[in-house]
């Protein structure tokens, strides 16, 4: 208790120096929380969006299907298993058939994926209700990214060429019935969505699909032969990797700020132990043990972290709260990384993040405060009293 009171008095007594250190340290707190909040928010948002638009609670992949190898697509189709077909009829599973295609917008040629999606589906946000499987024309929907890069508008016709089950080329105009806006580039860039039954007809693969999106993951041990279930663990692996890389990159910035603050504290400690030898000697003469005196100085240095929490909370709390309300505008092209990114990113500051940061900074501060203080236990009190050391 004495240690805290004394530390507080000494810090306040040091005035501007304390204020500066505390400010820089508070900046470190706020930045660490802010930056990690962004990544956590991004991660959360990307997951939520990806779940809503692309993966739901998981996907059954036809065993040949491999999204990273376009060559496999030719063989990656099979009749939708009966169990999945049953839930598909209730809209709780979404069979999707995928075939490689070439599109010819404005006379240009672009590679694309032609995807047939079950229009009865109720679990993905893709507005499949716009698609009409019974129409004479082939109705298609695309995302805003493709619409922009291919110069498409609602009502436009787009020439699409694909191969059927025998490898024979075929081509037709599709009518753009709708353009949707999504944060998930995977369902947008280079993706042309048409009704499942239509694509099955066009390719000669009736009743078949390449993958089936489902609204709940199967229990342990439930398998469907010829189909592999891919859960969130698998589907988000790439996302996690990407977030991790970005987090590491972003942390360099605040680690420098933190290091600066810690260095300043270390320096202050060394200086104050040197300048306050007399005080140290006096404490010992008054009956404190060296350990207690080391304790006083350690608490004093560590208290920077406590004051910084208060100062940081003072401006950081409203600031961070504000960013969760308004979000942060993402720079153009952020989603070119292939990561789901809305125009506005809402940071997410978890309690664990805040407490973790505070604990981390406090431990670091205490360590750099303790290291120079250990010198006290080697001081000769007689010399210290007279300020004779060095």
């Amino acid at each position, binding site marked *: 208790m004495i240690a805290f009171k004394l530390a507080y008095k000494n810090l306040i007594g040091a005035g501007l120096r304390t204020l500066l250190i505390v400010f820089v340290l508070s900046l470190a707190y706020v930045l660490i929380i802010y930056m990690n909040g962004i990544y956590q928010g991004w991660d959360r948002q990307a997951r939520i969006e990806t779940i809503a638009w692309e993966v739901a609670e998981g996907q059954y992949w036809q065993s040949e299907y491999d999204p990273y190898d376009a060559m496999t697509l030719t063989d990656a189709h099979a009749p939708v298993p009966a169990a999945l077909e049953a839930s598909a009829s209730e809209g709780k599973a979404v069979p999707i058939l995928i075939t490689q295609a070439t599109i010819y917008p404005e006379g240009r040629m672009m590679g694309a994926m032609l995807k047939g999606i079950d229009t009865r589906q109720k679990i993905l946000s893709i507005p499949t209700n716009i698609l009409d499987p019974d129409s004479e024309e082939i109705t298609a929907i695309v995302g805003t990214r493709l619409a922009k890069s291919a110069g498409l508008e609602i009502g436009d016709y787009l020439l699409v060429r694909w191969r059927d089950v025998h490898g024979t080329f075929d081509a037709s105009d599709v009518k753009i019935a709708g353009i949707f806006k999504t944060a998930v580039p995977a369902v947008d860039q280079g993706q042309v969505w048409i009704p499942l039954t239509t694509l099955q007809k066009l390719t000669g693969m009736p009743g078949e699909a390449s993958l089936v999106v489902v609204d709940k993951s199967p229990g342990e041990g439930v398998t469907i032969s010829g189909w592999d279930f891919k859960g969130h663990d698998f589907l988000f692996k790439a996302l996690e990797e990407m977030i991790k890389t970005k987090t590491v990159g972003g942390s360099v910035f605040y680690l420098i700020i933190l290091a600066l603050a810690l260095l300043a504290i270390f320096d202050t400690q060394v200086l104050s132990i040197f300048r306050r030898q007399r005080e140290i000697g*006096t404490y010992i*003469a*008054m*009956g*404190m043990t060296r350990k207690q005196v080391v304790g006083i100085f350690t608490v004093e240095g560590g208290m920077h972290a406590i004051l910084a929490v208060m100062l940081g909370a003072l401006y950081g709390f409203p600031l961070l709260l504000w960013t969760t309300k308004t979000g942060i505008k993402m720079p153009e092209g952020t989603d070119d990384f292939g990561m789901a990114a809305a125009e506005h990113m809402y940071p997410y500051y978890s309690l664990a993040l805040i407490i973790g940061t505070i604990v981390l900074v406090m431990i670091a501060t205490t360590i750099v405060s303790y290291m120079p203080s250990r010198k006290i236990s080697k001081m000769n009190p007689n010399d210290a*009293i*007279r300020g004779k050391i060095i």
Partner: protein
Amino acid sequence: MKNGSIITIESLIKSFPIGGGEFTALNGISLNFEKGEFSGIVGPSGSGKTTLLNILGSLDSPTKGQTIVLGTASDQMSPRVAAMLRKKHIGFIFQTYNLMPVYTVFENVEFPLLLLKTPAAERKKAVLEALEWVGLTDKIKSKPPQLSGGESQRVAIARAMVKKPDLVLADEPTANLDAENSHHILQTMEKLNKELQTTFVFATHDEKVIGYLRRIIRLEDGKVVSDENIKK
């Protein structure tokens, strides 16, 4: 140990390592201090006064010989025991005052009682009483940088006396003070010595201090050359 004696020193030798060899600062000192003494160790610079005083205050330990300070022998004096002894029974007064600059006068004087975990109400009473002894009740809220040298040393006396120790050790307490202030603080200490029966041991070469002493121990080159009681 004689009845009423609070410090006994026998054949004390204190040497410091310097360079390759040793320097003997105190060389075969035997002394006895009794309760209520107002005594001083007097001698030229470098004669070993401070070294002796620090051993009396258990801030330092003898190289050879025995000391018994307030009933604790030097060979049983662990750092913890020594700290406890100083905390409870010994007050120090320094040439340079050594007040804590960020604390008010009140808080400086209160500090030894905080170490002793004295309850707040009792603390306040004792601090005010100690400040009354030294005549500084009007400065309780001041901080050391705002005080004159004489006032600072009076605060230091109050700080040393507030726990009513058995022994007060004062190393050149007047060295930074003018004549008037020196006499003032010496009179204060003399009064406290009489009222509270506190034992005072000074280390000094100041004639003004010597004039107040009732026992003068003269030290030269680490040896006691004379030890006389003065009738007053």
